[in-house]
């Protein structure tokens, strides 16, 4: 009986007999953290998991592109965990293990939802199944990371320590990395759809130009003018008009480059003219801008 009680206490770490309880989280806390992560993953990527083009791209995308996508996803997770996710000073190994954990959870969660919705079934080759899972799991993993870091209620007290850690980091590097995460998180839901291609191929040039202007005004406004949540703390106050304009250009460049990468990955550039490539990037750049400006602030609130 005594042994069972001890076992129960160790399993649920209510009051662990070992000294590891000093800094290790209780199982209960870990479970809650994973649940927050899973909620975040679903919140940001359930639209993707319910999109046909994504299931198809799982078997249309070559192994080389899948490998590159997985690596880029891992790098984004590392960057996000380094700058935002781990609210304290940490070693590189800790950052890597946190990112591995999130990517692994992303793969498992994606596999489960695809199985539940009947997208993974007998008769499919291993290539098809693994492709489908990898294509979706990267966004799910970023969602999990954001969910773990942002959806909890206990983050406030560690704010000071986080701020201290933040000040030591390179400001521009941090901003660029988090902006890419925001852009990917928001635009990945739209990137593989046929709609981007249809809009890009049918849109008139002057409307494309207006879309560029709207994206830049909206993104620049969020970062520097409309007092969006978190701008005071997270965005360096521009000393002149030119600095705000430069900041807006950097943000829009990030949105366009992230869009182009996602479109290339989903095979939307194959055999396309230069005009088509630019048009598609601008069309997807619109949601990506929202991710790189407003999304960026929300995922590190």
């Amino acid at each position, binding site marked *: 009986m005594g042994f069972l009680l001890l076992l129960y206490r160790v*399993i649920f*770490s209510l009051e662990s007999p070992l000294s*590891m309880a*000093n*800094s*290790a*989280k*209780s*199982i209960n806390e*870990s*479970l809650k953290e*994973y649940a927050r992560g899973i909620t975040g993953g679903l919140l940001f990527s359930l639209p993707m998991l319910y999109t046909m083009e994504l299931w*198809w791209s799982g*078997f*249309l995308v*070559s*192994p*080389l592109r*899948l*490998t590159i996508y*997985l690596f880029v996803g*891992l790098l984004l997770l590392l960057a996000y965990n380094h700058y935002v996710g781990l609210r*304290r*000073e*940490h*070693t590189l190994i*800790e950052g890597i*293990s946190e990112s*591995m*954990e*999130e*990517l*692994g*959870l992303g*793969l*498992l969660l994606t596999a489960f939802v695809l199985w539940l919705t009947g997208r993974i079934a007998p*008769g*499919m*080759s*291993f*290539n*098809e199944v*693994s492709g489908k899972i*990898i294509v979706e799991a990267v966004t799910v993993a970023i969602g999990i990371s954001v969910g773990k870091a942002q959806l909890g209620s206990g983050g406030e007290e560690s704010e000071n320590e986080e701020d201290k850690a933040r000040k030591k980091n390179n400001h521009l590097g941090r901003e660029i990395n988090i902006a890419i995460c925001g852009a990917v998180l928001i635009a990945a839901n739209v990137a593989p759809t046929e709609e981007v291609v249809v809009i890009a191929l049918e849109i008139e040039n002057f409307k494309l130009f207006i879309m560029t202007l709207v994206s830049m005004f909206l993104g620049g406004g969020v970062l520097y003018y409309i007092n969006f949540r978190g701008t005071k703390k997270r965005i360096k106050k521009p000393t002149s008009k030119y600095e705000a304009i430069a900041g807006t250009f950097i943000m829009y460049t990030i949105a366009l480059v992230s869009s182009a990468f996602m479109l290339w990955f989903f*095979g939307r550039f194959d055999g396309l003219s230069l005009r088509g490539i630019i048009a598609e990037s601008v069309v997807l750049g619109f949601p990506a801008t929202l991710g790189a400006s407003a999304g960026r602030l929300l995922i590190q609130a």
Partner: protein
Amino acid sequence: MKMEDKKNWLEWLVLIISSLLVLGILVFLVHEMIYTEQTPPNITVDFGKTELKEGYFAVPITAKNIGSETAEDLQIEVINGFGNTEEKALLEFPYLPGNSSVNGWVTFTKNPENQPLVIHILGYATP
């Protein structure tokens, strides 16, 4: 001072499973890149046992792509009989990925058991 965050057994378990999964998938992808030759779609079709429904005969069909690339908008025509009694059935699949199979049914008003069915793969696109 660096604060090491100690992990409990659940976190270790999740980390180990996750790492194995991620590394396993990377190894698989690299293996695919190096050793698997990309071959164009190659469609084969198998029939199952004909079933008598109300007023028609239904034949189960399995189309298999033994190539490694995906066939898109695959159309398969199945012809039952010839001459005046000829009946044609058409089956369409939006996608048939490499090394995978899809199932479907074709139906005829005359019993196809009496004569061999003729398969005609009408065509497919390579995306």
